[in-house]
Structures are given as C-alpha cells and as structure tokens.
C-alpha cells in the first residue's frame, strides 16, 4: 500500500508541474505578444530618424495548442494519482482536504478542457489553470500526514452516499470555477475590447452553461447530504455551518439564474454575480478551517 501511496504522490507532483507549465502557456496565449517595430527614416538634410512602435498581437496558435496538450498531461497524471490512491485505500479519495482537493484538481482540469473543446475558447485557461495550480500549491502546503491513506471513521462509512455526495460537490465547484473564469474574461473582454479574446456573448453563454451543470450538481449535494444526514444523524437538516454555507452558495447561484432568465440580466451584471457566487464557493470550500459542527472531521 505504501508504494501505491508514494506512486500516487509522485503522479500528483508530475501533474503539478504539467499544470504549472500549462498555466504559463495559457497566460502567454491570452495576453498575446508585444511586437516592437523600429523604423529608420532618412531626411533631406542627411540625418536619420529612428522611431519605435510597440503593438500587441495575438499569440501564435502553437502556444495555445501546447498549453492544451500540457493540461491534458496534467489531467492524465492526476488520473493516475487518483487511481493509485483509490487502489491503495479501496475507495475513492474523498475523505479529507488532501483527497478532496486532489480530486478537485482533476475534475477542474477535465471540466475546463471539455468546455475548451465545446466552445473552442483557449483564453479561459489563463484563469482556470492558475486556479488549478493554486489548488496544487495548497495541497503541497497541507500537513504531510494527510498524504497517508487512513481508514474511514464510522460517521463516513457509507460508501455510495459519500462517493456521490462528495463527487457532486467537487463537480459543482469545478464547473463554478469555469463559470468564474468566464465571468472574469467577460469583464476583461467587455472593458478593453481585445480583438482576439472571445466575444462577450460567448463568454456570457459559457458561464451560464457551466452554472447549468454546477447548479443541479450543487442541488444534488444538498439533497444527498440531507439523505445521508437523515441516515446517520436522524435528521435531514441540522443547520450545520457547512450545510448552511452550501445553501448560501446555492442561493447566490439561484439569484444569478433568476436574474438571468426572468429579468433578462446578461453581461456585466451577471458576471459580477458570478464573481460574488464564486467567493461563496471559496468560503464553503475552505470553511472547515473556521467552522465547528458536524463536518469538522472533513477539515484537514
């Protein structure tokens, strides 16, 4: 088992490197390249004038493709990492912040790459991939003992519900991360009119589509969490801080969907709500550090 755990960690290290390199390429691709032109003019008087001009141009498609390739490498390594850990523990790695975040890194990568493929938008990677790298850094900073595979405590011994409930949470957070990236890029594209960024309408739609996956997933998190709570604690809602933080996040995305579908809010206003909603996701994700309550065992 120890060998498998070590292999899993090595694969995670390789994934981190691939994601970091991919993030750099995506950022370079999104920013474009600065072209410096020097013009020398000869005057009638026999003197010369030199003028310098800098312009921003789209990056080469090659760097974008390379970024995507590296991101797929990262995903492949992370799949191997999760696989080794699953075999070592006899269950999907979902029971503490190390395992949860590792699986999040994988799903965020997969969800992003699928959206990149569906919409043909690579610039989004300039925001999502740095987020993934940030999560990798967070995992590296976690206490080393969390890298060990530990047996489940009795409260978590409900494999089907734990697998679906926690996986849905990770899927929801991953899609919300993509929606957040679309919102940020929308605000940039809308503000500065950069020619090679995707059209604001496309980004607006992409953010919405991501939420249409994340919101039902988040609803399932709340419902399955309630079912599990009823099975383990005898009540389907305990007003536990982690539960209510998830409810808070769900409500904010509910506001986003209502304002969009019923009041026709599109564009900047919707994008700003997505930013606030993602702040709620971050709050829910890392809430274990400040919450007590029934989810405290999932802390670190």
């Amino acid at each position, binding site marked *: 088992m120890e060998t498998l755990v070590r292999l899993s960690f090595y694969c995670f290290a390789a994934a981190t490197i691939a994601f970091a390199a991919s993030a750099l390429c995506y950022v370079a691709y999104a920013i474009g390249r600065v072209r410096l032109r020097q013009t020398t003019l000869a005057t009638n008087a026999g003197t010369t004038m030199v003028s310098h001009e800098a312009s921003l141009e789209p990056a080469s498609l090659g760097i974008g493709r390379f970024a995507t390739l590296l991101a797929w490498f990262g995903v492949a390594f992370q799949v191997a990492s999760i696989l080794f850990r699953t075999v070592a523990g006899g269950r999907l790695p979902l029971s503490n912040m190390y395992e949860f975040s590792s699986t999040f890194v994988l799903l965020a990568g997969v969800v992003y790459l699928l959206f990149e493929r569906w919409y043909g938008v690579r610039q989004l990677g300039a925001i999502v991939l740095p987020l993934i790298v940030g999560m990798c850094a967070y995992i590296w900073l976690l206490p080393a003992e969390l890298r060990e595979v*530990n*047996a489940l*405590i*009795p*409260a978590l*011994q*409900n494999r089907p519900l734990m697998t679906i409930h926690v996986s849905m949470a990770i899927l929801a957070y991953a899609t919300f991360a993509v929606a957040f990236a679309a919102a940020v890029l929308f605000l940039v594209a809308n503000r500065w009119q950069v020619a090679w960024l995707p*059209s*604001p*309408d*496309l980004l*607006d*739609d*992409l953010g919405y*589509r991501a939420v*249409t*996956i994340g*919101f*039902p997933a988040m*609803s*399932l998190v709340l*419902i399955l969490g*309630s*079912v599990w709570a*009823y*099975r*383990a*604690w*005898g*009540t*389907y*809602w305990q*007003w*536990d*801080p982690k539960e*209510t*933080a998830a*409810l*808070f996040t769900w*409500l*904010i995305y*509910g*506001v986003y969907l*209502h*304002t969009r579908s*019923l*009041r026709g809010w*599109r*564009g900047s206003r919707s994008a700003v709500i997505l930013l606030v909603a993602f702040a709620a996701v971050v709050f829910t994700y890392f*809430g274990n550090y*400040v*919450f*007590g*309550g029934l989810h405290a065992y999932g802390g670190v």
Partner: protein
Amino acid sequence: MTHASVQQRTLQSRALADIVVDRIWRFFCSVRAAVVEIAILALLVLVGTLRGSSVPQAIADTFPVTAPIVDRWYAWDVYRSLPFAGILTLLSVAIAVCTINRAPGIWQAIAHPSVGTTHGFLRNAETSASFAASIPPHAFAGQLGTALRSKRYRVLTEERNGEVHLYADRWRFSRLATFPFHLALIMILAGGIVGAAWGFRENEFYIPEGSVRELGHGTGLHVRLDDFSEVYREDGTALAYRSDITLMRDGQPVQSGSMTVNNPLTFGDIVFYQSGFGQAVALKIEDSAGQVLFDDALPLGPFQSRLNPDSPAARIDLLPAGVALSVVAPDENPANAPELDTLQLRPGQMFFMIRPLGADRPIAEPIGATVSQGDSIQLGDLTLTFVRERRFSVLQVARNPGIPLFIAASVLLIGGLAITFYFPHRRVRGIVSTTTDGSVARLAPIARRDWSAKRVFERLALDIGRQLGIGPELHVNEPASALTGSRQSVRPSL
C-alpha cells in the same frame, strides 16, 4: 343617503380593495422582489453560518469595540428567529403566487403561440437565415415545415397578406419544468413543518447496558440495551460502534436488532440511530428500612462535577430520601489538567456524594466517600452498593412523517432543473414571401443575446439547407455569430 351615492361609495371601496389586492399580487409576482427576498435569505444564512464559526470571535479580537455586537451575534439563533421565518414565509407565498401568475402565459406559449411575425424582427435578429427557391411560397413553406419537423420541431403556419408566416418550436413542454422545481421548494419547507408538527425527535436517549427506558411520545415502547460494543481496527482506529437493543411493548419484546452509525434500526415509522456511548455505573440504593430506592445503571457523562470537571460523572435526585446523589468516575486522562482532580480515584473506584435536596434536609452537609466495585457504603440513612461498571449508549430516536414529502420534492427539484437546463424551449420565426424567381424564406430564432440558441439555429439552418439542397444565406447582426464569428452575411458551402 340616496341609492346612487351608496352605489358610488360601494364602487369606490371595491376599487380600493381591487387596487390593494392588485398591488399585493404584483408584489408577490415581482421578480425583483423575489431576487431581493432570496438575497436577504442568503444574507441571513450567511450570518447564521458565520455564527457557527470562529470568524465573529476573530472580528471581536481584532476590533474590540465590536465585542458587544459579536456577543449578540453568537447569542442570536438566526434559524429560529422571526426574520428568518418571515422571509421563508414570504418566499413560499411569492413562489406560489408567481407560479399561479405565470401559468396562463406559459400555457399560452405552449399551446397557442402567436405565429405571425414582422420583417423588422427578422431583419434585426442577431442571427437569421435566408433560403431562396423557385417554387411558390405555400409549397416552399411546406418544404421548410417538413424539414423542420424532421428535426422534431412543431411547425405552425399562417397566411398574411400573401405571405406565409411560420413558427416552429422544440421542447415546448420544458417550460412547464419551472413548476415542479418551485413546487419542490415549497414541499421541502412543508416537509419540515410536517416533521416538526407530527413527528418527534429525541436527540439524547441515554440507556445503560441491561437497562430499560421508556421511549414516550405516545409510542408505548420501552427500549432495552442488550449490549454495546466498540470494534477497533488493528491500527487502533474505530471501525464501528454498535448497540443491540430490544423494543418492548406491554412488557413483550416486539423487535430486536442492532444499529451502527450509518445503519439505523427501523421499527414501523420510528428510526433509532447510534449517536454516542460512554461509561455507566450499576448501583443499588436502599434506605434504612431496607427499601430499594434505585437498582439500575446510571450513565456517567451528561453531568460535570466540580470535584473533577474532567471525569465522567452523573447526578440523580432521590426524592423519597430527600437527597441528590452525585457519582464521579476516575479521570480518563489524568495527564490533562491534573490540578483539577481533587479525588485521585483509581480504576475500579467511584466517588459517591449525597447532598440535601428540598426543605426536609435529612442531612445537614454533603457527605461523600470513595467506593470500590462490589463494595457498599453507608451515607446518611442510605446504603449504596457499587455493583459494577457498565457501558451506556446514546441513541437518537426520530419519527418524521415529512420524509416522503422531502423525497418527492427532491425528485421534482432535480427533474425540474434537468429539464429546464438541458431541454430548453427553442423557437424559430419566419416569413416566406413571393419573389420574381419564386419565393424567399427568412428564418430567425428567438435568441436575443443567447449564444447557444444562435449556434443551434445556425446549425439547424445549415441542416435544413442541406436537406432541401439550398445554400442558406446567414445574416449576422452584432454581436458576433456563434459559428462563424463574422459580422456579415455569409453563404456557407453545403
């Protein structure tokens, strides 16, 4: 007062009532009001969530001036407060009213949509497609209808001023999915109310091994804990906590079974959950006349003794004897705060202490003594026997008739969301007009600032063109086309 003035006054008051009802109705139907209500609910949930965290304390530590506010924050049970109940009620009413209000419009759009459109709409649409054919408009509209139907669109046509107006839509019934979703939200709240009103819940049902306790709540049930066991893995981590219980009615066993965390025991609609466990002490107490006042086990844990706050302890009021008995067990972790342990008990020992209770005061001062397992001691007029150490289990017991509502609501909620998001109502309008060469059709989706709907339409236009053998001309107004990214008219190759 004349008959006419009475009639006028009645009319005025009725008009006023109508205005009030109309305003209230409009308030509940207002999306803006609903968004504000959800935002307030979210804010209250946030306040409640932070109350269960260390954040308020951190604020008070950083800004001492906020300490009184933070104290009130911690003291405020948000979820049982009037504002929280109020906003939930308001939202529930708004959902119900809004749903009723929207129903006719949605049904109209599904069953009787308006077919006619204008050239202005088609010209200004963000994306549209033109098809030319050398056949009369009616025949061409028929061909377009067949092509659209093959894509599972419903097609309606109408003749106006020599032109054929066309309306096509797909997944029209998905618009109804908003109703199960919103109904589910109300059902979840209703489930909570039903559970609270007609169910019961025991959060801490203490029961020592070998003891029988009455469940109450009109169930007529008694619970006996036959055995409690903890199972550990080789590495010392807990694998399971298990209680074996027997349920009895009228002294007769009606069901026996085990429960562990995550595997409750069900009897009818009553569910028993494993919640906790601890140390208990079996004792026998007799008075000076030899009458047995207590012969049972006492859970040690719910009570904290000042003699050693770290130790498991219990207290029981012996009303016939006019005293309260406290029992303190040895410290489970002597290394932790040893200065608090004034008793220094060894394993196998218990400290018993009685103190006067009520006005009779059979003893003047508290009397206490350390007793070993199996020994008896005289305290005042009482003879106390420390029979043996035992375990106790803490169960949660609940009956929640709101659960079926909750389950049904969950299915409706997820189903409603899935249909709304993944089967959106797609609509296309068009006009087929006569030209010198035959006819021309211009189609456009109802998809303002909807990139996906535009992309679906552009693909549909290409498919129809391919099916009819006509190259459609795509017209794109600002913003950019979903497929081409162009801002001009383009004629894609087939």
